[in-house]
């Protein structure tokens, strides 16, 4: 075995038995990072991967000699270019920060000072530290804006942060970090808040710029698929300890530690075409459990009685009994709005909702208790969906009493049964929500919906706020519950791979209109609606080299810009569509192309054209 000769010019950052903890009131230490060792070399991207609480962000910040308020370095060393930054004073650190090492945060919107123009913030570090004059820094910033493919690179710096879009701001933050020519970049989940189609552009830009600048980088994320695209080496963290570390291809293809395997298993690969659940037409005989016909909806009320902010236009979606319908789309596409229309929380401005073939009142007030019981809504954030002042027993007990769904059992027995159904111990009944973890709360949230013995459960992004493994477990639970109870699920998510892994049917929403719907295997196979194709090609695959391939597709190139807005007429995807027919697509509503199997594409192009 040849030992590394520890060439100091080579290693940019090194953590040696690094320990970080919170000193509590009684003087004891609550250790967050429990002795971590790793190195980052020049030109190399090292990914720190782990779930919330793993200490990945805390470790990454140590490269800047920074511990979040309340935390402190309690042992070991963090060597930046050979200097231990954990032992330095703020004054000693200042010349390093922004110059030797730069930081990119998760939310650019919060990280830019709202009152200062972008360019001043981007060029601030090198100018303040005297490594560049203002003119040099401006020139560098301009180069970076161009390299990051920002629109109007000459003038974008003169804007204020709220005047540019989220994806642009995320790239501007990269420019801010790179402006001082840092040796080391620390990127903390920089694409997590972005939609998939935006993420792909930002990832591509990051990767290219890091390569061009020859910087080293620490990339913090929870997403193994992203890691596969951008990292050279991976460090897997759990509870403040390294579980596995190594080159990215080895970790991805051959995870050794059971925790890494768990992480990999939790990623659901996109089903290949034709590999989805076998669709049968048995359900076509009975009337659907819940059906939306011609729904228009939006927020606010204008003078004409129509919504001020229209969100949905002419949406027709039927939910079959005992099936799962996945509704997929990017933020702002109206998928949650659709669920709220079903539930009666937001009355539609036009169109009808049918439950068991019976027309429902658009709002809550016109629905009977029995109708309300049959359609239950599960919120994304269990934190706000569960009353913090009620015991779990009361949270679950109330719908039982209210709808009379105890089924001959005592209330207590029924609550126990519900907890059992969602795989929680009975003792949890006497706890308050804040005494549970995020995943446990989400299970209670689900159990409350089940307490009503519903026919349809509307799940609004129920796994989005959860860690990968926890989310995977919740999906398994949903699958099992459906088998056992025969309930229908409407599963709303922005994450195509999660939806496709367990939905029977998929509805693709774009800017308030249905682009495509049908059985999962049909929707995910050609012919595609152009937007579905973009979406499918944007979901990162956990394999090295995917990003480069995906970036070459015409969808990615075409989809890079363009606004996502509900149009009054025509197809809203017109502005981004590579197959758009000017004068037709933007003027005339797309026809529904039905291939007879329930697979419907709303497009002016023919199936043959869409197949290509």
């Amino acid at each position, binding site marked *: 075995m040849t030992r590394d000769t520890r060439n100091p010019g080579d290693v940019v950052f090194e953590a040696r038995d690094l320990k970080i903890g919170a000193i509590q009131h009684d003087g004891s230490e609550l250790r967050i990072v429990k002795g971590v060792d790793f190195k980052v070399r020049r030109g190399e991207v090292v990914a720190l991967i782990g779930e919330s609480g793993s200490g990945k962000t805390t470790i990454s910040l140590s490269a800047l000699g920074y511990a979040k308020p309340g935390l402190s370095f309690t042992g070991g060393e963090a060597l930046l270019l050979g200097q231990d930054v954990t032992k330095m004073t703020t004054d000693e650190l200042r010349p390093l920060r*922004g110059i030797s090492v730069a930081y990119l945060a998760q939310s650019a919107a919060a990280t830019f000072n709202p009152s200062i123009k972008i360019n001043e913030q981007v060029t601030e*570090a090198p100018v303040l530290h005297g490594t560049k004059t203002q003119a040099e820094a401006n020139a560098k910033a301009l180069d970076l804006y161009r390299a990051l493919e920002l629109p109007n690179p000459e003038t974008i710096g003169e804007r204020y942060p*709220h005047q540019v879009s989220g994806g642009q701001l995320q790239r501007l933050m990269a420019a801010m970090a790179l402006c001082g020519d840092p040796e080391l970049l620390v990127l903390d989940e920089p694409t997590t808040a972005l939609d998939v189609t935006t993420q792909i552009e930002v990832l591509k830009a990051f990767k290219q710029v890091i390569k061009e600048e020859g910087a080293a980088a620490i990339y913090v994320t929870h997403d193994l698929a992203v890691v596969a695209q951008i990292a050279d080496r991976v460090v897997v963290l759990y509870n403040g300890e390294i579980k596995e570390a190594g080159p990215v291809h080895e970790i991805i293809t051959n995870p050794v530690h059971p925790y890494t395997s768990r992480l990999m298993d939790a990623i659901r690969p996109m089903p290949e075409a034709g590999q989805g659940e076998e669709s049968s037409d048995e359900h076509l005989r009975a009337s659907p459990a819940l059906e939306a016909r011609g729904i228009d909806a939006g927020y606010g009320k204008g003078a004409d009685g129509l919504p001020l902010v229209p969100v949905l236009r002419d949406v027709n979606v039927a939910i079959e009994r005992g099936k799962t319908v996945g509704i997929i789309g990017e933020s702002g596409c109206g998928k949650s709005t659709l669920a709220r229309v079903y539930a009666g929380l937001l009355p539609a401005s036009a169109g009808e909702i049918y439950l068991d073939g019976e027309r429902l009142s658009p709002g809550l007030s016109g629905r009977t208790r029995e109708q309300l019981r049959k359609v239950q809504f599960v919120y994304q954030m269990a934190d706000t969906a569960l009353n913090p002042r009620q015991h779990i027993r009361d949270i679950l007990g109330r719908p039982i009493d209210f709808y009379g769904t105890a089924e001959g059992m005592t209330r207590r027995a029924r609550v126990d049964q519900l907890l059992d159904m969602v795989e929680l111990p009975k003792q949890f009944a006497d706890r308050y929500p804040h005494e549970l973890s995020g995943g446990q709360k989400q299970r209670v949230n689900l159990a409350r919906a089940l307490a009503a013995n519903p026919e349809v459960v509307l799940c609004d992004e129920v796994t989005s706020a959860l860690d990968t493994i926890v989310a995977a477990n919740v999906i398994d639970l949903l699958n099992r519950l459906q088998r056992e109870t025969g309930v229908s699920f409407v599963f709303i998510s922005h994450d195509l791979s999660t939806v496709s892994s367990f939905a029977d049917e998929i509805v693709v929403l774009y800017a308030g209109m249905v682009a495509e719907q049908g059985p999962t295997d049909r929707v995910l196979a050609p012919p595609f609606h152009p937007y579905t194709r973009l979406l499918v090609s944007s979901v990162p695959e956990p394999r090295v080299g995917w990003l480069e391939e995906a970036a070459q597709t015409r969808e990615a190139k075409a989809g890079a810009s363009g606004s996502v807005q509900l149009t009054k007429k025509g197809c809203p995807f017109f502005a981004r569509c590579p197959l758009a027919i000017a004068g037709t697509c933007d003027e005339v509503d797309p026809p529904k192309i039905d291939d007879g199997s329930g697979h419907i594409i709303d497009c002016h192009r023919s199936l043959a054209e869409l197949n290509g």
Partner: protein
Amino acid sequence: MTGLILRRLGIGLVTVLAVSLIIFFGTKILPGDAAQIRLGQEATPENVAALREKLGLDKPYWAQYLIWLKNFMTGNLGISLASDVPITNLIADRYKNTVIVSCLTALIGVPISLMLGIMAAMFPGSLYDRVLTFVSVSLVAAPEFFTATLLVLLFVFALDIGNAVVVGSTDGKGFFELIAHFALPIATLSFVIASQLIRMSRAAVLNVMSSPYIEMAILKGVPRRRIIFRHALLNAIGPIVNVVALNLAYLVTGVIVVEVYFAYPGLATLIVQGVQSRDFVLIQGLGMIFCLTYVVLMLIADIAAFASNPRLRHPK
């Protein structure tokens, strides 16, 4: 943003109208009749009726209200019931004292308090911060006359400087002579608004200091001074101006107690006299002046909040 300000101005105008309604009809429910009170118990019914007609008291209430409002806006505050002189004459001698004390307090108290508060926010948890916080937490809850008594105890009794009563004329006095003249009232009011201002400006700056963009500035190696003065204060100015305006509005109340305490003639002592002598024409006039000042300051506070919001200043 202009739209927002216009809207706020509109609301301010409606508020002023509502306030005038409250004051006018609030004092209308008082027992007694202006004409009767002015003429005294011995007046003949004919004389009373004649004066009632002259004062417009025979008209319906809403007509009286409109006349009163019109008069108020043209600077005619009516005739005092207690002393039979136009209220504008009564005010003429006194408004100077009230205005001088309020303005000097604002001029001296506000900048000092803001400086102290911002400094406390710069070194949170330091001894300086803890002492200042404790003192301001204590003072903010103490009544004005307690602070005034402490000051009298210190300056008049212990140091034997000045007087517990403000006496003498302000005519021909220069800026510093005026400060010396009203030293104790100004000091009292300054302490009272300082305790609020220090707490609130400190909180405003600390609130901004905990935002992610300040953390980012730290991680960019921006020096502490620049973080405070360029990154934090720029965003804290709105809340701070808001706090200052609120506290100046408070001076309207504080000045009443201070004038009575130090026994010098001002608008506030006049209104207290008005209440004691049930001179509701006087109460209406002065009440409107005080409330107007208050409403205008609140308006400034709100507009400051709009104006400091970059999203409103630089729309997309």
